[in-house]
């Protein structure tokens, strides 16, 4: 009886691990899509309405996907705290808090870091160029992430359970 219970725990444990890894693959494209539309909103606020950065970030945070909103909200709060930090530093700080809770990976973060270095320091055409570049890079990563999700989601969903079964068979 105990053996059967242990087998069930191993199989379900393996299954859960697989599902979690597959979830990472399937949610990264969703986050990248939301990120792209949030950057699009930020670009509109900056180039057309010339909204000050803190206010623009607040508007984007209010309208963006709930998974992305904390990044913009945290940057806004840091900027308004008047602690003497620049937009780059506020953005970096928010990114560090945001990263552990997101499904974005290192190369996505590198795009966001580069963008942070350019936020608010040039005229609106300069800002537009930096934001467009970031959006294009996010779009390229999105395509790669979708292809990778297509391959890996099914694979990891089954691999977890199968791995669990293999372990059970070896030790049974």
């Amino acid at each position, binding site marked *: 009886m105990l053996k059967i219970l242990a087998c069930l725990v191993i199989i379900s444990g393996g299954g859960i691990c697989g599902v979690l890894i597959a979830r990472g693959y399937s949610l990264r494209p969703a986050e990248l899509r939301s990120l792209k539309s949030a950057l699009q909103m930020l670009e509109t606020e900056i180039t057309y309405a*010339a909204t000050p*950065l803190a206010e623009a970030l607040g508007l984007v945070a209010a309208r963006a996907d709930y998974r992305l909103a904390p990044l913009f909200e945290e940057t806004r709060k840091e900027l308004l705290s008047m602690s003497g930090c620049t937009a780059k530093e506020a953005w970096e700080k928010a990114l560090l808090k945001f990263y552990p809770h997101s499904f974005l990976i290192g190369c996505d973060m590198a795009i966001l870091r580069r963008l942070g270095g350019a936020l*608010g320091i*040039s*005229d*609106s055409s*300069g800002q537009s160029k930096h934001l467009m570049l970031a959006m294009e890079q996010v779009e390229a990563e999105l395509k790669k992430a979708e292809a990778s999700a297509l391959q890996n989601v099914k694979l990891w969903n089954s691999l977890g359970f199968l791995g669990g079964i293999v372990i059970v068979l070896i030790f049974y």
Partner: protein
Amino acid sequence: MSRVVYTLDNCRVSIMPSPWQEVTPVLPAGIRSMITSLPLNILEKLEEIRLRQNRPLMLGLADGDILLGNNGKPAAAPRDCYLVTADDIQRVTQLISGCSLYAFGEELKNGFITLPGGHRVGLTGKTVLENGRVRTLKYISGLNIRISREVKGAASPLLPFIIDQKSGSVLNTLLFSPPRCGKTTILRDVIRQLSNGIPELNFRGAVIGVVDERSELAGCFQGVPQREVGIRTDVLDGCRKAEGMLMLLRSMAPCVIATDEIGTDEDFAALEGVFNAGVKVLTTVHAASLAELSQRPALRNLLNMKVIERFVLLGRSKNIGTIEEIIDGRTMLPLPGKEVEQCLRFLPAL
């Protein structure tokens, strides 16, 4: 450090930061702590903070300037001074614009940005030209943070001489002085008092239109005056003076139009339109004497028109904002009388 303001009418007590405290948030942490640790007698006299890349950090006080040393104390020789770094300049540039330089294109073109509270930051660097006109500034390397002060009552001794007590109307007045003699502060207080009304002079208060091209008079932040400019005052913020005066004339039916630092031919042409509409004018101009005023062609025309009823010369002989002379516009002679002497003896608290 802070001014405690008791407002009796609504029983509210608020703590107002000192003017210098309003500008410290735009300074990088190092410079901020150096300045805030200075003795209060220096801070209360602080008028300017000048940052020039690779050169000493300089503070402009009411009685001259001082250099700050690396230890945050006033330094005796330039070699002991704290040298402003490129990073300091970049940080201040970002902080004064709320990390949104793109939203200040027009301000960069004019070479200054106004902070909440009406403090003005002048910028220098390399200008980018387009069709011979300044498009923007790049490589910003010099900043001058000018601390604006609001001194309520600063204009009180002057008011009896710029109001016609018989007709209850304001006289066309031109305040003139060399720079840093308190023109803007006096003008702001004149506006505030004329707008609110002055019971002692039996003056009920007039609708005043202010064209605040450089956001110095009302210190507007997002369109809302941060300085007290009176209950009957409409402010057109960031608008060119010539255009703004005519806009106010058409739209807000003011009794008085006030504007700071007129100088271009366009401004004088617009002023003519205001005089013709029967609206009174309060304005200021840079000049050290009446003779210097009359040497400028555009001003000479204004003098010949004989429309300005009072010329007021400000100076620093006793303190900033000292009223040195009040000149009658018709006779072009100093106003006589005991009251005028009393006014000239008044020690301003700027």
